[in-house]
């Protein structure tokens, strides 16, 4: 794909919802070269209002707000906006991360965070949002390194040699490509492949992914395509 993403990306507004003035200050300073304006809210109520009024391009949401549970706020925001939401949390339980992503957040940053990390996450989300729905899904042929995936012809070749995929592996691969660059939680991935039907397959999800990796990755222990988001899910990385 052409690479507009590497050019400096500047947006109009970013909203930060956090009750700690020090955190808001750090965010304001570090994102100054990404957003022309940083809107600040110290409570959930104020934050939801501002999200509607200011139409920010991205929302940073602290989980430990005094007035409401962060997960609720996240779901609320999702009722009227589809801009990326990055959650800031000091409670760095991996299980919470999965719940967050399932509630509509796009990414999470654990406190304490470095400003470099925060900027990188914000840029990545903005770029993904700007690119619109994954380009990959509209392509019939995807090539990464020595791997060629033909979605129409249902063939995968690695270094010119055809790789045989089972139907389950094909479905997984298609779901990954449809959500390329995006973190998919285990339950989101399961729903994308099997629908909502619960069954034996759910417990084997990680095993199926492992088998797919062994067919696609050069080194399945250090995967470059199907990345692991520990205890949360997977991210299909086309190296954008």
């Amino acid at each position: 794909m052409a690479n507009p993403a590497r050019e400096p990306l500047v947006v109009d507004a970013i909203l930060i919802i956090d009750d700690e003035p020090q955190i808001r200050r750090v965010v304001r300073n570090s994102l100054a070269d990404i957003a022309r304006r940083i809107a600040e809210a110290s409570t959930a109520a104020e934050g939801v209002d501002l999200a509607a009024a200011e139409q920010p391009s991205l929302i940073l949401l602290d989980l430990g707000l005094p007035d409401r549970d962060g997960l609720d706020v996240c779901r609320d925001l999702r009722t009227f906006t589809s801009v990326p939401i990055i959650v800031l949390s000091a409670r760095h339980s991996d299980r919470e991360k999965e719940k967050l992503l399932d509630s509509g957040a796009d990414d999470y940053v654990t406190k304490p965070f470095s400003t470099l990390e925060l900027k990188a996450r914000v840029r990545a989300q903005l770029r993904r949002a700007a690119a619109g729905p994954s380009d990959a899904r509209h392509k019939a042929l995807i090539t990464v390194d020595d791997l060629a995936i033909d979605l129409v012809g249902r063939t995968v070749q690695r270094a010119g040699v055809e790789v045989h995929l089972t139907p389950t592996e094909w479905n997984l691969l298609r779901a990954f490509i449809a959500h390329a660059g995006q973190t998919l939680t285990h339950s989101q991935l399961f729903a994308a492949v099997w629908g909502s039907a619960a069954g034996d397959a759910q417990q084997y999800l990680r095993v199926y992914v492992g088998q797919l990796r062994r067919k696609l990755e050069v080194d399945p222990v250090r995967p470059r395509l199907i990345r692991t988001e520990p205890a949360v899910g997977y991210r299909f990385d086309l190296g954008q």
Partner: protein
Amino acid sequence: MTEVSRAATEEHDFAALPAGPWPRAERRTVLPLRQWFLWFAVLLVVGAVMWTVRTRLDKAHVVLAFLLIVLGGSSAGGRALGVSLAGVAFLAFDWFFLPPYNTFVISDPLDWLVLIAFLVTGVVAAQLLEWRRQETELARQRADEIDRLATLGAETLNAPRAEDALGAIANVIRQAMGTEYCEIFLRDGSALRLAGHSPGERQASEQAGLLAYAVERAEAAAERSDGTLTLLGDALSSSRSLEAPPVLLADLLALGIPLRVRDRIVGALRLSSSRPFSVSDDQRRILGALAYYAALGAERVRLAGAEEEAESLRRADRLKDALLASVSHDLRTPLTAIKGIANEVWNGGDPHRAQIIEDEADRLNVLVGDLLELSQLNAGSLRVTTALNTVDEVVGAALERVEAAHGAGRIDVHIANEGDILVGQFDFAHTMRVLTNLLENALKYSPTDSPVTLRAWKDHGVVRFVVEDEGAGIQASDAGRIFEPFFRGSGIPDGTRGTGLGLSIARQLAEVQGGTLTYEARTGRGSRFMLALPAGVGPSVSS
């Protein structure tokens, strides 16, 4: 009355108990038939001897001799033998020793008196001896009973686990009472918790409220086969006097008994059968004593639980002490550095020194995370979600973290994935933490140009992970302590920083998942850490 009671005892008395640890009392040692033969022979011989010299004998001599034989016979062979001897001696005396001889005719009326007096004395003596013998027998049975209870007490209170004792007591009570099932419940606040039961299937027919009713009223209660509940008062109390009228305990489906120790109800006992059962007077009496053992057993379980709780509190307390010591040192050291450098930079020092502030803050962050995790582990509040995971993925995630911090290239990974992909049943996040910790340690405590190896394979139902380095290893004197919180080995080079919590957390994280983490020194040089976790089974057909 004594006769009836003894018969009942013999009929029900632990007839169903195993012979094993219960010494079965020997009944009469000499066969009655031999006694009869012996004493009639004595009578015959003595009679014959006296007959040969009867002209020189007075009637009184004969009577006394026969009386002695009757007494001897009845004391050795019981009342029946005594009375029979008396009867036969009576006839023999009349026939052979009272003139006119060889007839039952009695010429002198005074001889009647002698004869009747002999007969009455013999029979009364036999009867008295019999009563005495029965009393002795009863006392012996009581002693047996006490013996059995003592054995039961010793055996049950000696069971290695307090809960096992309750199961054993329940089984003994079930057998002694001849019911199908016996359960012992512990009182837990206002609720009852099943703590031990006899083997077999529980009978579902009894009313659920029986025990609650019995405990609430502090009285034994019975469920009759018509479904009604009856309170039994002190019917099962061991202090109930023997003269009190017998209580009819028949046609029962279940019996609920509150268990008391020192006037406090510590639990309850339920006996039940699918068919109506009854409890005899003697069973009732021993049930009181057996129920007391059940109560002591229940009390013991409660005390053991309290002791465990106290032990966990003591552990938490020790950890808190170690924590306070650590907080004062390990948290303050980086804070001091941060404060000093911030002040320096503020006063126009080299702004690049602010990098140290960030490093120290990172170190504090790691320590805070470790302390949180350790306290969660100790409080038992850490959540563990085991699921089917691939070894590839968890090793990959750990590698990504470690190599991001320490650079790639030093870690050799060998995962035995030939054939089926290697899977385990473990918590992903916790296992990743353990592996990250082991790999970081291996990199930190070995020369920067030496390799670190991670191998994983399946071995009899477990997945084994082994992390090896070629560093200095751990001093033998420290090897036993490296998994203790805040322990730092003496051979650690200066400048190598750690919280002293990593291995302690790693081991506990392995254990909460049903795994183990162990250390051994490598022959030659270096350390070897071995993590074992339950293996898993992947989908049978890779569809």
